[in-house]
């Protein structure tokens, strides 16, 4: 059987890099791999220090992959400031199948104890690292201590990213394999049916959205605060609130909210200010929320949970009389997928965003000191240094002047920001194998977008059911999100968890990236708005104001002719 699969795989095809995107390969082996740019997590050019950060992320993947005995590792590298990753085998071709089976067993074992591992081991460890960061006095630290703190930070970040993948592999494999089995048992019920049995659980992403909604109810309790929110642009609200006692009291409430849920930037990575640094995005959501009284997030969630329980009862009824191994596997995967549904969002809250915020905070403190010493022009420029440069500079009483180096690198980033990176480099080795891991990748990342059929029709993946019409707003950053109005269709490259409070305002979501298990799709289903994900080119093709018909079941977006 393995040799038959190898024979069926298509011939690899070398990919020519565009002339404006030259690639220097470190080895012919590298060139033979298929390198993709992860537009979902890493759409933008990476600054030098960010590249080191993402190297840590993927080193974490590889340690987790080793722990689970997986036959695959990730190679990662920057190309023209963009970050590309490739999958490569960790064992010889003859051993891949057997190794894959060992990995299946390891991941199954983690799936069997997912909730227990999270509560008993993983979350406590994550929280201990966060507490260690929070206990350190950044401002008051002497230079040698800051340097030591930096080194220790890198070690802890490395450990957290290993934990990240130790968590997400069984988390997502549980949901994906549950869906695989469900669709084998109950064919022809549409893409969403299996996910109904997993919906309606609370998680940190939904909790953050609900807490923001509840904050908006408290804003409504003061006519003054309400007026301030209504009468000013999101970016000006915070200052205005400071002018009155009621406003100042609300600033406190907002601060409390941000201390729990605001330690998140708008996308993955180091260069995005956390909401606690700049709460404009949160305030934009508050402005939208105070205009409405028709939502009850808890009731919405209860409705989803009821529908879930009914769907589960129905499935169990139909499985009566099936051989026991079928029923046992169904129940095993259902239970693991329930835990996965929570952890697929919670891990991001606790690791992706919370730990990144701590690392960013440390780097900005380093940057502040370096800017004071005129080694760089401003604190945020610290991200334009490489890790080795940073290590050499922190703790130096007279750090060397790196300002012109930073300027050169900024120009390089600006240059490549204006160029669309090729989605794939190296070699096209065909679609991922049709095995549980390959299928999960397809459901999460969405696979290559389908070829365009008609100019006014975009095809993507079904993300969340329903059909809706509304004016498009193409939003490239949360700063741009202020233009989104109630009933608009939010069109974005991707929607990281901090974007999701906008789902209460938008009528539907359309993205360039992602599949039915992407964060966008999963959360859109919880907010019960239609979503078409993974269109590839929505942000390039659609313009603000165009009327879109979004068909979440079909994975189709129609652009109305003017």
């Amino acid at each position, binding site marked *: 059987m393995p040799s038959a699969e190898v024979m069926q795989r298509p011939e690899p095809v070398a990919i020519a890099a565009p002339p404006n995107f030259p690639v220097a390969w470190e080895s012919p082996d590298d060139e033979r791999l298929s390198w993709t740019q992860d537009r979902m997590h890493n759409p933008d050019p990476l600054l030098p220090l960010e590249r080191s950060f993402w190297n840590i992320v993927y080193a974490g993947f590889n340690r987790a992959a080793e722990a689970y005995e997986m036959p695959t590792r990730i190679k990662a590298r920057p190309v023209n400031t963009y970050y590309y990753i490739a999958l490569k085998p960790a064992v010889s071709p003859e051993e891949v199948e057997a190794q894959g089976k060992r990995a299946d067993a390891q991941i199954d074992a983690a799936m069997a104890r997912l909730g227990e591992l999270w509560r008993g081991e993983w979350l406590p460890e994550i929280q201990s690292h966060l507490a260690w960061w929070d206990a350190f006095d950044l401002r008051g630290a002497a230079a040698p201590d800051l340097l030591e703190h930096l080194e220790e930070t890198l070690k802890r970040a490395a450990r957290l990213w290993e934990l990240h993948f130790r968590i997400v592999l069984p988390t997502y494999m549980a949901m994906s394999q549950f869906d*695989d089995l469900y669709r*084998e*048992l109950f064919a022809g019920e549409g893409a969403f049916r299996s996910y109904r049995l997993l919906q309606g659980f609370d998680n940190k992403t939904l909790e953050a959205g609900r807490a923001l909604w509840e904050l908006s109810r408290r804003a409504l309790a003061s006519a003054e605060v309400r007026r301030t929110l209504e009468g000013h642009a999101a970016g000006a609200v915070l200052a205005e609130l400071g002018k009155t006692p009621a406003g100042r009291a609300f600033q406190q409430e907002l601060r409390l909210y941000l201390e729990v849920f605001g330690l998140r930037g708008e996308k993955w990575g180091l260069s995005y200010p956390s909401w606690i640094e700049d709460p404009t995005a949160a305030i934009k959501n508050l402005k939208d929320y105070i205009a409405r009284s028709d939502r009850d997030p808890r009731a919405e969630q209860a409705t989803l949970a009821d529908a879930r329980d009914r769907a589960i009862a129905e499935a169990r009824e139909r499985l009566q*009389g*099936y*051989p026991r191994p*079928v029923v046992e596997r169904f129940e095993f995967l259902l239970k693991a997928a329930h835990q996965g549904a929570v952890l697929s969002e919670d891990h991001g809250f606790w690791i992706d965003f919370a730990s990144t915020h701590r690392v960013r905070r440390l780097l900005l403190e380093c940057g502040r000191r370096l800017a004071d010493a005129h080694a760089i022009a401003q604190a945020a420029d610290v991200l334009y240094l490489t890790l080795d440069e940073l290590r050499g500079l922190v703790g130096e009483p007279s750090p060397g002047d790196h300002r012109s180096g930073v300027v050169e690198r900024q120009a390089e980033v600006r240059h490549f920001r204006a160029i669309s990176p090729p989605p794939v480099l190296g070699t096209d080795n065909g679609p991922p194998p049709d095995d549980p891991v390959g299928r999960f990748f397809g459901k999460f990342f969405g696979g290559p977008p389908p070829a365009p059929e008609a100019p006014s029709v975009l095809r993507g993946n079904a993300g969340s059911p329903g059909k809706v019409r509304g004016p498009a707003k193409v939003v490239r950053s949360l700063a741009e999100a202020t233009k989104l109005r109630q009933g608009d269709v939010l069109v974005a490259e991707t929607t990281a968890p901090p974007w999701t409070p906008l789902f209460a305002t938008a009528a539907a979501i359309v993205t360039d990236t992602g599949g039915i298990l992407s964060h966008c799709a999963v959360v859109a289903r919880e907010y019960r708005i239609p979503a078409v994900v993974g269109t590839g080119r929505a942000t390039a093709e659609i313009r603000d104001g165009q009327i879109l018909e979004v068909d979440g079941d079909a994975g189709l977006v129609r652009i109305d002719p003017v």
Partner: protein
Amino acid sequence: MDSEVATRSIVWIGEGDCHDCVLLGGKAANLCHLAATHRVPPAFCLTAAAFDRALTRRPTIDEHASLASLSPDVYAELSEAYRGLGQRCGTDAPSVAVRSSALDEDGAVASFAGQHETYLNIVGPEAVAAAVVRCWASLCSPRALEYRRKHGLALDGARIAILVQQLIPADVSAVLFSANPVTGSRDEVVINASWGLGESIVGGTVTPDSYVVRKADLAVVSLQVAEKRRMTVMAAGGTREVDVPRFMRDQQVIGADQVGEMTRLAMALEERMGHPVDVECAYHAGQLHLLQCRPITTLIGSR
């Protein structure tokens, strides 16, 4: 012979004097014999006498007729027996198999489809009654009688009994041969096992796992694990053949313990019956149930 037995509508398999009843037909009589020493799912037989009684007032039976109006007495007895079956199974509304059990007095019966009627996963007295009527109708519907007329066969004399037996929702089913049907060897037991109900094995829609076991020491001399793509499962009102989920296709359906258990069963049945046997059995919740046992009719070099 006890005349009471001779006229009874309901005979419980494996209980009392079921052996003495000639109105059970081959299938049910066979089970009576086996139930004495093996675990056979609880069952009763609606005898040929019940069939006679239902037919006294009419020459034909339409397959959609209602038993309650056709013969209220037989319907009442059948319902009560179904309730009794529920008690023996430990559940109010057991799922049953309703099968024709042919009597051989009239050799022409053998050529009729009526000999092989089977309805699986029937629940409730109404549904059982409907299945019974359909079995009867296969013998004496207007179309069946027309067939007899055309072939110059007697219009009466064909009689059947109906076997109503708890249906085992098999996790694994197997067909056993107490001699090797391919080589004719009497020293080996052959086991063909697969997922779900035995219909997929018997019907040939699945390639089962196949074991050849040496009787002398119960050693497995050959084992072929097949890619099992289809299985028969219970579905609303009946059964369905469905795809086997991917994760189970290449899994061995039985382990060493079960191989041993089934080998010993085949050998015991061969000894009991005095000839090589073709056995259908099923595992459910770890327990082995005997469903059918027949002589192997075609054996190369049989003694």
